[in-house]
Every structure is written in structure tokens, then in C-alpha cells.
């Protein structure tokens, strides 16, 4: 599992593909207030980003290996909570 719950945080690890999106939504539904920690993620599929954006998740950290991730975060941030 690349997306899982760890001590009240939804943690992404490694390559998070489109197949994980339902897991994410289930977790987000069950723990709507949990922060989502992307620090350990390597790649994140657009479907996952879209779910995060839709759910206005509280995102922590930035996938270190993805160059575009900071830009995506800032772009979805603009539409989510700011």
C-alpha cells in the first residue's frame, strides 16, 4: 500500500498510482481531518492530485523527487482553501 494511515496522518509513500485513489477517498472520508503527508511520495498520479484538490485536504510536505509537485501544490492550493 502506498497510501495508508499512520498515526492520524494519511501518508503517501513511493509511487502513488491511479489505483490508489479509492483507498485515498476511503481514508479521507473516514478521517476527514487527517493531514495528508506527501513527504515520502515519489510520484503522484493526476487522479490522486484531483482527489486531494476536491477534498481540500490539509497537505503536509512535498514529494522530494518530483520537480513539478511544488507547482501543483501551489496551483491546487489556490483553488482549495485560499
Amino acid at each position: 500500500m502506498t497510501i495508508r494511515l499512520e498515526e492520524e496522518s494519511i501518508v503517501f509513500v513511493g509511487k502513488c498510482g491511479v489505483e490508489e485513489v479509492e483507498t485515498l477517498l476511503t481514508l479521507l472520508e473516514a478521517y476527514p481531518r487527517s493531514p495528508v503527508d506527501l513527504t515520502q511520495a515519489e510520484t503522484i498520479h493526476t487522479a490522486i492530485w484531483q482527489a486531494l484538490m476536491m477534498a481540500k485536504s490539509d497537505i503536509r510536505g512535498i514529494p522530494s523527487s518530483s520537480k513539478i509537485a511544488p507547482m501543483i501544490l501551489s496551483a491546487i492550493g489556490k483553488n482549495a482553501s485560499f
Partner: protein
Amino acid sequence: MDELMDQFAIEARELVQQASDDLLALERAPTDRGRLESAFRAIHTLKGSVGLFDLGPMHEVLHQAEELLTEARNTTIDIDAGFIDPLIAVVEWVDQCLDDIAREGKPSENLARQSKQILASLHAGETADDTPLAEIPPETVPDWAEAIAKAAGIDRGMSGAFVAVRYEPHPECFFSGDDPLATLAKMPDILHLQIAPKEPWPHRDNYDPFRCNLVIEALTAAAITDVEAVFRLIPDQIRIVGLTPLKQEKAELGAAPEPVQPHAQKMTTMRVEATRVDALLEIAGELVTAKNGLLPLAEDALVATSDERLSRRILSSHQEIERLVGALYSAVTRARMVPLDQTFRRFPRLVRETAARLGKSVDLIVEGEDVEADREIVEEIFEPLLHLVRNALDHGIEEEPDRTTSGKPPRGSLTLRARQRGERIEVELRDDGRGIEPDRIRSAAIAKGILSETVAATLSDATTLQLLFSPGFSTASTVSDLSGRGVGLDAVQMAAQRLGGHVELASTPSVGTVFTLSLPISFSMSRIMVVSVGEERYGVPIEGVIETIRLSQQNVTAVRAGEAFVLRDLTIPLLHLAELLQLKRRETLGTDLRVLIAQAGGERVGIVVDAIAERAETLLRPLSGLLRGLPGIAGTTVLGDGKVLLVLDLEELIG
């Protein structure tokens, strides 16, 4: 994560500085659109970066500041103090927040509370006047492309071409294995990215995570062909628009030049940590020392083998290495050069604040900020300059009524100007204030017992003014009452000297005062002699040493509390380096003393050391940080063995 924060801190400072520069320039030239655009870009980018972190109210404050600037860009609201002041307050507040972030990771509670006031002042500044500017000529560029360029802070007046991309992935694209953002990320040089839902988000229960509901827009500095290549398989979902630069209208006369375009800068410059360049410079300095070892080697070879060819080969290889080391050294020296602007740009805001506090209005004119010097010199020059600027504002420039009475313009003028003179730079600070009366300096010097009346009478006006730099004047409150000059001027002189330079002063009563700092462009190689005292080794600049002698202990005579000896019919006082450095003096009965004959204050002095080791050509660096105040130390250098050596300032040590 920390790295990102570090990067943010560096960039944020630059953006704050940029915004501050632009706002101050706008204050002087309210019609300068270029400055307005630049201020907007700086605030906009700053807001974007702040958004990546949880930094309390910073985002909201910046957002409001951006709104105000946007309004100014789109309308013709007056750019006056009512507009500029709240924005300057924002910039200062953000600057303080950055200080806090550097210390504690986030803005303090106190600053967070201040944000409310700042926001209120920003709202008050929105004196809306919704008259639109002259119609922008119709363009074939679609609105969305214009909008993203605008959102990215790209002014189409800027040179360089950009490509705007609008990507509406097919709703079922996830099923065909597409990952739109990953595809987009293949595009080089992305400058800006926007993601929005194509249709409003459905309720969670109806949300289909496998349908793509996004519109992605991006702006890139890549070539349009490269962009097309990335999306060649999905032409139906993509729109690509090239944004060629608009013909730029002639800049207004006297308008500031356009700031360097960020992406062009990216191509030609890179940010390198200063310590890495320093390490290179040190290695280059050590190489200079190391290559010196080849000369004796050539001699040894000749002696040991009588093979002249071998010796000559070593010599010619020494020459080649010498040439290369010289080239390396000067290349690294150049790498450390930065424009004086890095220090000069801190002054406009400072002058504005200080002048406002003193109830004076002063225009600061900065010239020659693109003159370059060694990074350390550019940094270190700030404090002495700050001192001089404060002095000029506080004491040089008169209050407005006084100025009017003496027929001067009510606003004072302060000019900060740099120019290059051969291997040196000259930084001049000129005010049009009340100037300094030499006679008052004379009488103060007499009163302080620095000069006798007869000597004072013979001093020229120019020489008299230089008295202000002498330490005797530095803390004299009488002087600050007298003319306002003098307080701490010796500190300015010392700072300049530490950097291998000096300060001069010229003044005409009731016309103004000019301070000129003359400094080297970079630190040069100097020859030192390495001496040892007990276990410690020190460097002594060779130019300060006239000769070295062996002195028999029998020839040392006790003279009152001290010692002296006779050298070629001249009686010379003898000092021990160990004592000067407050180290334990080693008793060496019977053996000859090793003595450096040095010139100090026009007199010869013998200085006893335990041993004289090698001579070396090295790079002398001024003291920094904690060592700075150390008396008697001229600087530090790194020797071939990697050890740091303190280089003594014999004259100061003896004095």
C-alpha cells in the same frame, strides 16, 4: 523540506528587496509603469512562495497588497503617499516576518497581531477610481493565455518568448493510461501552473475519482516545438499558444531600466553558495604557495645531480604552473565579484525611514551601483556606509526651515556614488547639508588636548578635517554638539583600513560634506614571513619588516623598564613578540636572539621571535565575525598545510 524553506528564505529576501526598491522608485516617479509592474511581480511571486508554507497571516497580507497593486495596474488611481506607505509597511512587516522565520520557523505572535493593522491600512489605501487605462490594442492571443501570463507575473513587454498551454484532459483519460500532470511535467522550463476544476466539484457522494475534471494551464519558457512534442499524442486536448514579446514602447525618459528578465537570468547565472567559491579561492591561494616550492627544488636538483637539464625542466614547469595558478587565481577572484548594488540597495529604505524619524525630507541618489568588487568588501562596506549615512542625515542635512533660510531646496539631497579607479573602488557619500567649519574642529582639538594652539594654527583646513577620524575625537560629545561629525568616524576609518582602504573627507561650510571611501576591488596576494613564538606561529607582512638579525644576548642593554640594543650606531628598542601577544616569554639563556627589525610610527623597533620559518605569498583576508575586534591582527591566511595563520599588524601591536 528544510531545503525548500532555505530556498524560500533566500528568494523571499530578494523579492522583498525588489518590491521595496520598486516602491521607493515609484514614490519618486509615480508614472513609472515598469516599476509598478516589477513591484507587482515581486509581491505576486512572494505570495506564491508563501502559499507553499503555513506562515500564518503572511499570505493574506501579501494577497491584499497584490490586490492593491493590481488595481493600480488596471486603473489610474493616484500613486501617492497614501498608496505607497501601506505597501512599504507591508514590505517591512514581511521583512520582519522573514527574520522570525529564520529564527523560529514562523512569524512571531506579535507580528501576527500587527497583520490586522497592516490589512486595515491596505484597505484604506484602496481609494478606488475605476477609470480603466487606455484600451489595450486587440490581440490574437486568447484571453486564457493572456491571463496565465499575467498570473505568472510575465509582462509581455518583456523580451523573450513564452508558450502558454491549456490542457483539458479527456474525462476518460485515466482509463487510457494517461497521467496528465506527469505528461505536462515533461515540458521543460515551466514557469507557472494553474489547475482548476472543469466543472464545479460534485458532492462527495457523486464524485467519480476516475473521471478527469481538470483544466490545466501552464506557462513555459521552452521552445514551442519542444512543447508540441510533449503533447503530440493528444492534440485534441491541448492548446498551445506562443507569446511573442510585444513591441516595447519607448521607456519614459529617466525611467529605471527594466529588471533583468528572470528566465534569461536563469540561463546565464547560477546561485553558488559563497563558501564554495571561498574554498576555491583558498585552494588557489594555497597553490600559489605550493608552486613556490618548485624554485628551491630546481636549485636542489642542480646541486644534487649537476644535471642542468633537469633543473631547467623543473624551472620551466614552475613557470607553466605559475601562469596557470595566476589564471586560476584571477578567475576565482572574478567569481567572487558582486555588484555594489547588493549593499547600496539597502539604503533607500533606510534613508527614508531615518529621515522620516528625524522629520527631514531627503532624496537619496544612488549611482554606480553596478560597479563590482569582492563579495566580502561589498558586504563589509555596509556598516561604515551606514554610519556615514546616519551621520549625514542626523547632523549634515539641516532641518527644512534652516535650508529654506539659506536658500537651499527644502528637500535635502544625499548622493551615494561608486566608481572604479584602476584596481580600487571609490564610494562617495555627498550631502548638501551644513558642512563642517574647520575652525570649530581646531578649537575642539585644542580643547581636547590633541593639538597645541600653535600647531593648530599651522594646519590647513583639509588636514584639520581629517582630525575627525582620529580616535581622540571618536567619543567626544563636545564634537557631536559642535558639528555633529566625529562620533564614530574613527570606527569608519578602521573599518576601511581593515579592508585595505581608507576614508577621506572634504567639506565646505554651508554647502555640504563629501566622504570618500577608497577600497581595493579584491584582496590581493601579499608576502608574509612566518615566525614562531613558543608553540604558536604567526604571519608578519614582509613590507613591515626591514631586516632580520641575530642578536647576541650580551648586546642587549636594559633601559628603564625595557630593553634596547645598538644596530649600526642606532639605538633600537627591543620588544618581545611573546609579551606583545601576552604569551609566556621563553627564557633562552646564552643563545642568540632572532630579531625582526620593523618600522613602526617612523621609528625602528626590534622584535624578538623564537624562530623565523618560511616566507610565503598568500592571500590575506580581513578578520570577520568574532575575530573582528582583535587588535594587532591584520587578517588571516591559509597556509599550504591547510592551517589558518593569524597575520599580525606589527604597527598596531607595538603602538
